[in-house]
């Protein structure tokens, strides 16, 4: 029998329920208010009192209201039809909701129970299967969507029967499997899974050994993100976090993109809603929306569901990873999630950690990041979740708890720099402070050498050194004045500027410059390094600045031109001529 309860206390969205039976931590309960059921999650239990966080406004709720415990945790529904949908943080389909305003207690089906799917069997009668084994597939949009043995099934099963290829609905039974004791279980195309528990239906999770191309040069070239890797972007407001995340979501080399808008501006999500159905995916030629799912809990939506939204996104990512797909999960911003945790911890009167955040914040964050990764599935296929989160540090100060906790968990760090943003050097990723731990992985270095070029890693290291040296001499020049330093200093400074302007800076609004494939990145890096290696002949420091400025200008025109087009080659020729004129003999 289900456990029931009665409301005994209300403090904002923390509601205390007195239960008449067993209750478990993180169990979902529904609180009945004026004929509407409000969903809530148990976050603390004290005697027979369950402290629940309600995912809705609690306005008007009264003591004595009835509550029913559901005997399961917060779950998402997994099945064909998730792709291209717009969900809220609890996986309600936003498009199915009626009316302009969100209605409290309105929960909609994330899938379409009436939709028909063309099913093709993969497994056959007598096959030995386990959780996550592929039984068959349907085509979801353009993507083969695997129908799997539910992740909740433990141990091994034998396929007793599987339906013929044909058209079925999500709730239709498509297979019957038998466990070792001879008990039969029916399998449909849908299953449920609790969001806070990682899906572990894979054989092993190796260290990432491939690079995920994003087309953003300052990321790919200097600090690449590994497929199955994790990274985060902290930065003050107005530094281009969102533009950068949108660029990555449009260009990244992934089969599926999940965008979790977590506590951010509604108009930014509207931008995705409006533009993604129009924009072409350069890799498939289809519309971007066809490989995207949006989980959206904007800053004015209930706070508790904000926390749920990142987990909902991750669980859906894990589901698609189990199908052998490359998934990219973006979350903007994880700071808002941490703030939601802080609000609840505060209401429960827990002893606070730094800046009033809960003490276990670092553990929660690293736990979450650890769910990403590259995996070998049980059938030998591979899948991956690459996770990129943004952090909004208070006052732009990176020494705050969320940034520090995330730094411990994520392997790539893309620091957005206010000064770069102010001088319109976009993307404003600081080339000196940022890092990618993956560059140190021998398997990644091996991969880069094999796929891009034998000297690629050395070139990248060299470019980083040049940038660092450029920064050092620029400080010297500022202190001593233009004529207070040797001419050589000016040359060093401008050689670093060439890399900055040509490789690092990129126009996210130009149709060609916005995305650069690795082949082109390699070519351009070699060009700027050639300039670095050339000795020039300058009579005075006043000659240095105009020379490099004109080279940079031509390089920029090159970045705007089609790769290896006539125009592109023409600019290259111009640069060569300019260099030859100035070359030291």
């Amino acid at each position, binding site marked *: 029998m289900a456990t029931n309860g009665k409301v005994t206390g209300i403090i904002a969205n923390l509601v205390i329920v007195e239960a008449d039976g067993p209750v478990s931590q993180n169990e979902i309960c529904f609180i009945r208010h004026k004929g509407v059921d409000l969903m809530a999650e148990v976050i603390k239990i004290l005697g027979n009192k369950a402290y629940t966080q309600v995912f809705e406004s609690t*306005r008007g709720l009264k003591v004595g209201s009835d509550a029913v415990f559901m005997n399961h945790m917060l779950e998402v529904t997994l099945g064909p039809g998730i792709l291209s949908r717009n969900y809220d943080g609890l996986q309600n389909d*936003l498009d199915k*909701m009626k*009316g302009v305003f969100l209605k409290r207690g309105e929960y909609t089906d994330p899938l379409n129970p009436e939709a028909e799917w063309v099913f093709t069997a993969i497994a056959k009668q007598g096959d030995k299967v386990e959780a996550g084994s592929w039984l068959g597939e349907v085509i979801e949009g353009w993507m083969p969507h695997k129908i799997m043995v539910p992740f909740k099934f433990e141990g091994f099963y034998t396929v007793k029967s599987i339906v013929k290829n044909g058209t079925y609905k999500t709730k239709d039974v498509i297979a019957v499997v038998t466990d070792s004791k001879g008990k039969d279980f029916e399998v449909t195309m849908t299953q449920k899974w609790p969001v806070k528990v990682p899906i572990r239906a894979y054989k092993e999770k190796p260290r990432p050994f491939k690079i995920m191309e994003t087309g953003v040069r300052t990321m790919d070239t200097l600090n690449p993100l590994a497929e199955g890797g994790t990274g985060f972007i902290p930065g003050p*407001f107005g530094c281009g976090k969102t533009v950068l995340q949108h660029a990555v979501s449009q260009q990244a080399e992934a089969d599926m993109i999940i965008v979790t808008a977590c506590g951010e501006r*509604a108009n930014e999500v509207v931008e995705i809603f409006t533009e993604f159905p129009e924009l072409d995916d350069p890799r498939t030629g289809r519309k971007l929306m066809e490989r995207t799912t949006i989980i959206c809990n904007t800053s004015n939506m209930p706070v508790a569901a904000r926390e749920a939204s990142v987990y909902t996104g991750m669980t859906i990512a894990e589901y698609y990873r189990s199908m052998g797909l490359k998934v990219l999960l973006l979350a903007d911003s994880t700071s808002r999630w941490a703030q939601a945790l802080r609000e609840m911890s505060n209401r429960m009167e827990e002893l606070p950690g730094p800046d*009033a955040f809960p003490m276990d914040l670092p553990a929660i964050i690293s736990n979450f990041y650890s769910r990403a990764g590259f995996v070998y599935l049980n059938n030998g296929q591979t899948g991956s979740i690459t996770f990129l989160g943004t952090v909004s540090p208070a006052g*732009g*100060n990176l020494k705050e708890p969320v940034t520090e906790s995330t730094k411990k968990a994520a392997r790539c760090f893309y620091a957005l720099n206010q000064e770069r943003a102010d001088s319109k050097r976009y993307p404003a990723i600081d080339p000196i402070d940022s890092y990618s731990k993956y560059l140190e992985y021998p398997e990644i270095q091996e991969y880069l050498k094999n796929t891009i070029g034998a000297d690629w890693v050395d070139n990248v290291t060299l470019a980083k050194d040049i940038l660092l040296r450029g920064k050092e001499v620029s400080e010297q020049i500022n202190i001593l004045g233009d004529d207070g330093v040797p001419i050589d200093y000016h040359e060093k400074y401008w050689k670093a500027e060439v890399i900055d302007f040509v490789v690092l800076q990129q126009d996210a609004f130009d149709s060609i410059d916005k995305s650069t494939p690795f082949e082109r990145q390699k070519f351009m890096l070699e060009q700027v390094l050639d300039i670095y290696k050339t000795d020039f002949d300058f009579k005075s420091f006043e000659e240095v600045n105009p020379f490099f400025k004109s080279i940079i200008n031509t390089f920029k025109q090159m970045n705007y031109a089609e790769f290896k087009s006539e125009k592109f080659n023409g600019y290259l020729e111009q640069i060569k001529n300019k260099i030859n004129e100035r070359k030291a003999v």
Partner: protein
Amino acid sequence: METTAFQKIYTKITQITKATCSLKAEGVGYEEIATVNGRLAQVVKIQGDNVTLQIFSGTEGIPTNAEVVFMGKAPTINVSDELAGRFFNAYGDPIDGGPAVEGKEVEIGGPSVNPVRRKQPSELIPTGIAGIDLNNTLVTGQKIPFFADPDQPFNQVMAMVALRAKADKIILGGMGLSNDDYLFFKNIFENAGALDRIISFINTTENPPVERLLIPDMALTTAEYFAHEKHQKVLVLLTDMTLYADALSIVSNRMDQIPSKDSMPGSLYSDLAKIYEKAVQFPEGGSITIIAVTTLSGGDITHAIPDNTGYITEGQLFLRRDTDIGKVIIDPFRSLSRLKQLVIGKQTREDHPQVMNAAIRLFADAANAKTKLENGFDLNDYDERTLKYAKEYSRELLAIDINVEIDAMLDTGWGLFAKYFNKSEIGIKDALVAKYWPKN
């Protein structure tokens, strides 16, 4: 609020703090309003039969046997066309001597708009101020604050923007306004003959600070009525949001909550977002645009209030006094309108984005030249020209007393370019230069 028959009256208060009181009561709903000896209060905590009320006007003089009556509803406002031209206090009661407003009673602080039902903001709001229209164009459905030090004329600029904005309704939410500023708004709206499209909710410094917490919800619920139901273009002015946030911190302090950065409540971001996110473009026409004021202390934008605001709003407008021209200007470097990309060069002339960028870049060059000068380095001819340009740019385009059409602003820009620079120095696309460079 009148009591009606058969309402239960409680007379036994068990605890009183500076802003709250507690009593034993039954059948009370969360966020329900009540009166305590006639003062308006709201339920902020229920534990068993122990109910905690926040009394908006403070607890001074409240006795333990005060009469407490629960109203069975959250705070409401009556909305109808009769609101136009009226002045109200934080509770929605008239303060202009007029009669109470009849209309549909709606709860304030209602639900959010479903994000998939929103439309992308797309309509330009002309203000005549070049520092805004040219460099930081405003769009309907946008939310944007002025970040200003208390001594700057933000209320004047805001009133000017409001009057020129061609909005169907202007709703003023004044929080902690000085009485002088309240009268300023009243006079300027009256003199402009615009009273019939203005609705004001005013909490002055003479009123208790906690009352302010009601102002934004009152203003925005009213805005939703006109924008959503009447499909009107509504402009909401909120001044000063820093004082609103201060009131939040007072309440959270009284409720024994653990403060986070700068003694602000941990929920500051959500609290502010709930207000600002009411800015919206509705699908059937109608929009709510929010222009707010966040006063800074010594220009510090890392303080929790401006910092959280910056993460929520779609840009910010900075006022600065330019000593070279002796006028207040809209700072082109620190100001930003995130939504301008949606309209500039699309609803305005094609050269708008390039003229805007070139003018600001040259202004930045002038700033560098100035630093050079201050550090005792020699200036070259280009530096000299940028300095002269900067002065004129500041006077002709950045100053807040400008009032011209956008095309005229662009022409002024081209005029300045031609006066001080040659074509290759401004870095604008050749095709546009050929078309717009002044002929003589």
